[in-house]
């Protein structure tokens, strides 16, 4: 073993020689997770601990006060917390579903079907990997206003559905599936759409899970659409409401506890979904290369 040091990549069990990597990785992991551990502690602190001087990192007597305050603050402003939550859940679930469906269908088209302009389309999409949405927020606003989407639920969903990264990843993944599978299904009389839904979708489910996660993060955390395109407060999302907490609580110390509770609520779904699907994500990323 000692001779082939490359064999140390992806080892099956612990070995003394790995200590040096742990010595770097563990402090790094601790460092990056500190803010998250902090948020968790801060969210459960009662008022006297929030005010404690010198400030203490860990919570001593955890309470849910910050959470109940967070809910009450929303009701006080005329729109119940549940309304924001409902908007976010609705927008995110429809958005993720459409994003996965449209992206994978387009990826199948680009990977296995023949049509004019296919290569150009894929190249434009690869170029669009470099697209930064906030760079064009103004023309985007003008486009959206022209299409007449201002103040509708659709505007919270539609602009975020077409994800160049998503199409790219799924297409690379579908490229790996053998053409023989598709050919034999065709001989059995299946249409392209049937092949896509019944054969391709199950095979590429890891890639779809990845697109789902990316799309979830985009939709769930999005503040821009609610800020720019929606005037009616009752249609705005949870992420937007959370982003206004600073102003609502006047950046007070008590407000910090409420904001920590809000951050925790918006963070937890992200991490839970990622933990469940991380195996699939890694599987997809193996095919992520730009060739």
């Amino acid at each position, binding site marked *: 073993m000692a*001779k*082939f*040091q*490359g*064999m140390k*990549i992806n*080892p099956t*069990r612990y070995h003394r020689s*790995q200590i040096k*990597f*742990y010595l770097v*990785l563990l402090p790094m*992991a601790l460092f*990056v*997770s500190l803010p*998250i551990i*902090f*948020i968790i502690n801060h969210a459960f602190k009662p008022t006297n601990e929030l005010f404690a*001087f010198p*400030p203490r990192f860990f919570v001593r007597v955890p309470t849910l006060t910050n959470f109940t305050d967070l809910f009450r603050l929303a009701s006080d402003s005329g729109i119940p917390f549940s309304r924001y939550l409902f908007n976010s859940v609705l927008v995110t679930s429809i958005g993720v579903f*459409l994003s996965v469906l*449209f992206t994978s*269908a*387009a990826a199948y088209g*680009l990977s296995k*079907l023949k049509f004019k302009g296919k290569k150009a*389309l894929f190249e434009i999409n690869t170029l669009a990997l*470099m*697209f*930064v949405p*906030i*760079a064009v*927020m*103004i*023309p*985007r606003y*003008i*486009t959206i206003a022209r*299409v007449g989407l201002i103040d509708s639920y659709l505007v919270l969903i*539609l*602009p975020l559905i077409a994800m160049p990264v998503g199409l790219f990843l799924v297409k690379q993944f579908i490229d790996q599936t053998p053409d023989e599978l598709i050919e034999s299904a065709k001989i059995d009389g299946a249409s*392209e*759409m049937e092949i896509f839904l019944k054969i391709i979708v199950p095979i590429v489910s890891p890639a779809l899970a990845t697109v789902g996660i990316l799309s979830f993060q985009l939709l769930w*955390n999005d*503040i821009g659409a609610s800020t720019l395109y929606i005037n009616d407060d009752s249609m705005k999302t949870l992420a937007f409401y959370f*982003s206004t907490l600073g102003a609502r609580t006047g*950046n007070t*110390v008590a407000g910090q506890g409420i904001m*920590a509770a*809000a*951050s925790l609520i918006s963070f937890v779904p*992200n*991490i839970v979904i*990622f933990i469940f699907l991380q195996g699939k994500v*890694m599987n997809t*990323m*193996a095919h*992520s*290369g*730009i060739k």
Partner: protein
Amino acid sequence: MLKKMNHPLWFITPYVVLFVTFIIIPVILAIALSFTYFNTIQTPEFIGLRNYIELLTKDETFMQYVLPNTIKFAFIVGPVGYMMSFVLAWMLAQIPHKPRTVLAIVLYSPSMTAGIAMGVVWTIVFSGDSTGYLNSLLLDMQIINEPIQFLTSPDYLMNIMILVSLWGSMGVGFLAMLAGILNIDQSLYEAAYVDGLRNRWQEIFYITIPAMKPQMLFGAVMAVVGTFTVGAIGVQLSGANPTPQYAGQLLVNHIEDFGFIRYLMGYASAISVVLLLMIYSISKVTWSLLKDRG
């Protein structure tokens, strides 16, 4: 219904329509508007290159603060974040599956918070009075005598922005590189050691990186894009646009400043075009640098 859906249009139309409407058209519109004077009330008036000329010659904030800030920010956060992602991914590949999975999730988690949701942490940590964690710690250790106004002081804001951005830089590109390293054929290493590869540095440069070049490229593009997307963080941290004495003002904030605060949409569009060109050329340069190696 499903039986008859064979035409490629069934597959690509929904995606392409949304892609064109929300990505392609805005980009084209940005280019078109950048040659006009447009205050959102009157119809845009064609003024040729005047916006660009003004941006390069008359906009003092742009030349003095925004451009240097953006370059400094991008050239630190981009490469350092990218190298950190690679090194950490490589180290993770050297340890067994279970601890690797746990550590990978922990390292990836900050990028999920998208900076915004976590803004509150940083404002508390760097808070300008003695209740701020860092101030309290430094006071306690008697390194400083009075609290530092971290977030409103031009001297610190930029560095804090860089630190916070690096904290969240292990994103999709990091996962791609980790998967890339793990998927390299083990026999490549064996063959190379038989052929006289001597140490692990050689192994990284002659085998690992060349074998996972596609993932390295993907990671690089993600690093560039990520760097320019998190630009809003200065405004988030300091709570003001423009940021105090323009210390944390990046191109993205400059666009917002002119577009949504001063309503000079034509001018803001010209800045957008400059930003897109910057991202594009940096990606291309990175791309060719990586392509030449190995």
